[in-house]
């Protein structure tokens, strides 16, 4: 079912497309099996997210098809995304779940990227947030409004998955705040980063919202860790505001404003904001392949809307996904646009920064 070259298929695809449009505005999937391709391994955050949605989606789609999550990991998700790019719409039984780690190589013109977001059809965009935290005694040294200046002389260690991954956002944030942070690369997941923090080896860390709630809150209660700031969320005008999941925490913008070394304008800020936007508020998206007819897009959009409209959705999703927008329709389109379109200056800034600071050359 993978890697099919669809030359012979173009015709039948076109036929199916016209047929389903003629049938009305929904495609019927009864008796079919929907394959949800995740370009990561069974063990990551995207797997959790897809496994959460899969049974709900199955109930909501017309004909109640079986929805199976399949995994096609490799090359930091670019392999699975390239494979999806090679597929063309057939009968609506193939969907793809991308993540921030799929978006970043695309934005940074990684040589392995052979996929093009604008060819695909987005039907769901899930946002998330992130929280930076410190050991309690270091958090106690923060200045007025969480001003980072008193920590400028501290020797920070941060467990990182790689400078070109989602960690780019916190790494750039630390730098903007004037911190001396040495990233220790090669950890396998943010959970390992938290463990390194708990062992006292790392002394600065961030977690995505749901991991923060389940993993770090107990440390905060025990008094060994203290939250510093949440990266934030975007309001309708695209400004960075406080994260609704953590209304008591300052946003990165507030902390940056309070820290004299940090600028909330200029190329560095624009670059941070661009990559934050790509990585967090539009982190995970569901796509139909190139050439999907409007009926299929409508069907999936309606299904995800039905999932969101469930009475128990707020309850069951809070623990798994956090309190973040699950966007469909036009909102998902906007999220896709902001997540995959970065100003050339911001891109150049980050590429240049990666090569100067970490020696990463993307070619």
């Amino acid at each position: 079912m993978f890697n099919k070259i669809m030359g012979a298929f173009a015709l039948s695809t076109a036929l199916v497309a016209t047929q389903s449009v003629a049938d009305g505005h929904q495609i019927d999937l009864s008796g079919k099996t929907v394959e949800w391709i995740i370009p990561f391994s069974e063990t990551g955050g995207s797997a959790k997210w897809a496994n959460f949605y899969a049974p709900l989606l199955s109930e909501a789609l017309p004909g109640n098809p079986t929805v199976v999550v399949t995994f096609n990991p490799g090359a930091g998700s670019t392999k699975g995304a390239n494979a999806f790019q090679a597929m063309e719409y057939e009968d609506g039984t193939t969907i793809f779940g991308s993540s921030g780690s799929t978006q970043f190589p695309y934005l940074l013109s990684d040589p392995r990227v052979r996929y093009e977001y604008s060819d695909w059809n987005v039907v769901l965009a899930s946002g998330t947030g992130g929280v930076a935290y410190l050991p309690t005694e270091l958090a106690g040294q923060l200045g007025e409004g969480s001003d980072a200046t008193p920590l400028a002389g501290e020797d920070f260690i941060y467990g990182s998955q790689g400078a070109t991954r989602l960690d780019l956002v916190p790494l750039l944030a630390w730098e903007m705040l004037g911190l001396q942070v040495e990233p220790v690369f090669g950890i396998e997941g943010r959970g390992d980063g938290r463990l390194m923090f708990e062992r006292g080896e790392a002394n600065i860390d961030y977690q995505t919202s749901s991991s923060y709630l389940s993993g770090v809150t107990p440390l905060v209660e025990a008094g060994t860790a203290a939250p510093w700031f949440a990266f934030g969320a975007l309001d309708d005008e695209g400004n960075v505001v406080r994260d609704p999941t953590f209304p008591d925490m300052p946003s990165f913008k507030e902390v940056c404003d309070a820290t004299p070394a940090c600028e909330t304008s200029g190329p560095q800020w624009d670059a941070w904001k661009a990559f934050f936007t790509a990585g967090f508020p539009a982190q995970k998206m569901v796509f139909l392949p190139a050439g999907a007819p409007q009926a299929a897009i409508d069907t999936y959009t309606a299904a995800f809307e039905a999932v969101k409209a469930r009475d128990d959705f707020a309850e069951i999703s809070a623990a798994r996904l956090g309190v973040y927008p699950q966007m469909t329709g036009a909102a998902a389109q906007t999220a896709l646009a902001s997540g995959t379109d970065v100003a050339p200056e911001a891109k150049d800034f980050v590429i240049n920064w990666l090569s100067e600071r970490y020696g990463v050359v993307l070619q």
Partner: protein
Amino acid sequence: MEVFATALPALSDAFSMILQPHVIGYLVLGVVMGLCIGVFPGLGGIAGLSLLLPFMFGMEPVTGLALMVGMVAVVPTSDTFASVLMGIPGSSASQATVLDGFPMAKKGLAARALSAAFASSLFGGLVGAAFLTVFILAARPIVLLFQTPELLMITIFGLSMVGILAGRVALKGLVAACLGILVGTIGEGASSGALRMSSYDMPYLVDGLKLVIVGLGIFAIPEIIALLRRDKAISDRAPLGGGWMEGVKDWWANKWLSVRCSLIGVVVGVIPGLGGSVVDWIAYGHTVQTAKDKSQFGSGDVRGVIGPESSNNAKEGGGLVPTLLFGIPGSGSMAIFISAVALLGTGSIEVGPSMLKNNLDFTYAIVWLLALANVVGTIICIAASGGIAKLTEIRFALLAPFLFMIIAFAAFQSRQEIWDLVALFGIGLLGILMRRFDWSRPAFLIGFVLSAPAERYTNQAYQIAASRFRRGFDEGIDYIFSPIVIVLIIITLLSVVIGLRQAKNIQAEGSVAAGTKRAPVIFLLGVTAYIALAYWNSAVIPDFARMDRVFPVFVASVALVGCVLLLIQMMRSDETAPIFADREAEEADDNIYGLWATLAWFAALLLASAVVGFILALAGFLLLFIRIRAGKSWGYAAAYTAAGIAFICAMAWTLNRDFPPGLLQSYIDLPWPLT
């Protein structure tokens, strides 16, 4: 005392939760499914749990847990079948079992080896559960004591087991281990993403080789080919009497060994980040070191089965500690377990730091389901072992195509590309040559398995230590030389010294006669050439990615020195020296078929898969092999082929997997399973 006050009510709650008929029923169902999946090499807990995931949503928590725990707990029990009967490491937990289990099967002692293994597994599983019950409330601070330098030292301790398994020529074992490490570094470096022995034009190698492929290639393929060339059954003599009771008695006679190895399993399992890959080697090394008579290890000593099998089930109990306490999966299957638990019921149970506080009763329910699953699984396995052991009496030419089908399917699960099969064939060829020239394959595998953690922890410990030293010399020293590290250094040194002194007596793969000089020298030159290439390839990694350069360059340098010393030894020795061991000379009388003629069958399967896809190629392969090589009638061959294809399709369909496509599939679209 306060701890007991909270633990005791939770314990009794847990008991009343699991001792319900429908919970036990689901547990047994999980156990049976786990056994069925675990029997096949390469399919373990990950495949099984993925199968269960769709049913977990909204399921009553206790029944869901019973189903999943039942499945996870018995995989390290049932994978013993493949290790003992076929010499195929069923999963990373049963690598060391192959060393003595398979020779026992060849001697007609399969049932005895199996039942000894299952008795040990049961005991280890129970020790693990008992340990968890007591330890889980106090474990958190102890687990946190294991910082990066400690993890590095445990990895090095695991590598030091190479000393015992190095074989008659210790230097060959060392070079084999280094070669394993270098093969393990292939792909993108963990630190800076520099490419080692790979390029973006060949995306397959960028992610490195997977353990499934290397384990199957290095152990299974050479054994299958060797058995095929003899054209007899696996067991070369009639089964001895006694059967499974003998094995249980063997276990009882070595119960203290089993206790010690179970504890090793629990302790190593508790430490996040290492898990299953080392524990059986450490247990095997311990078994050999503490045994008085070492002469039989490698040629069928039952203690070599009892040790690793006691440790690998105990490890599952230990491995639950980081999973439940920190929400950090100790293995791939644990990662799925975590996300599956969140699907149960209303999602109120969340594995991780809050679990002990909010769901202590569920925590204990998991622990005791684990124990119960081990008991049920063992009983089923022991009951089945006598019958399944009869497989070793079937003529191997009839078994081999089926095994190849399973192995190829398992290897293909690694990346779902035709390249998986190419890699399997390549590593298999290396395994065949290593077996022929008596280079330690266990040493190679230990090196491969520990390559990634060794490099990662070395780099991380170096970076963190450097930062500590910047703060102050004392702080740096305290960080590197913690009491745990010092103890581990002492144990490692002792183990290396004792191991090297004894290595000559322990022939992990039996003794091998020497042949001529020419072939062993050519193989050594080939190995040297690869190592030199790996050295050059990593030495040119530019400075900004130096963290990805240091480790392979260091290992390759050590290996090159070893190769040069070996060459010098070879020049000085005469043909009968053990350094020229050549199994072709040893087995010349037994072999009916040539190596290359046998291998050509499988090369043909590979090539045909690349052209017409796996299923079509397999059908042709099975038909022709059974007709021509096994000499059966066309009717028999056709029936065999139909049964084989039906079986593999049923398995792939259940697990929702595809088969490797070939060139044909890129021109014509065929229905599943031919895709």
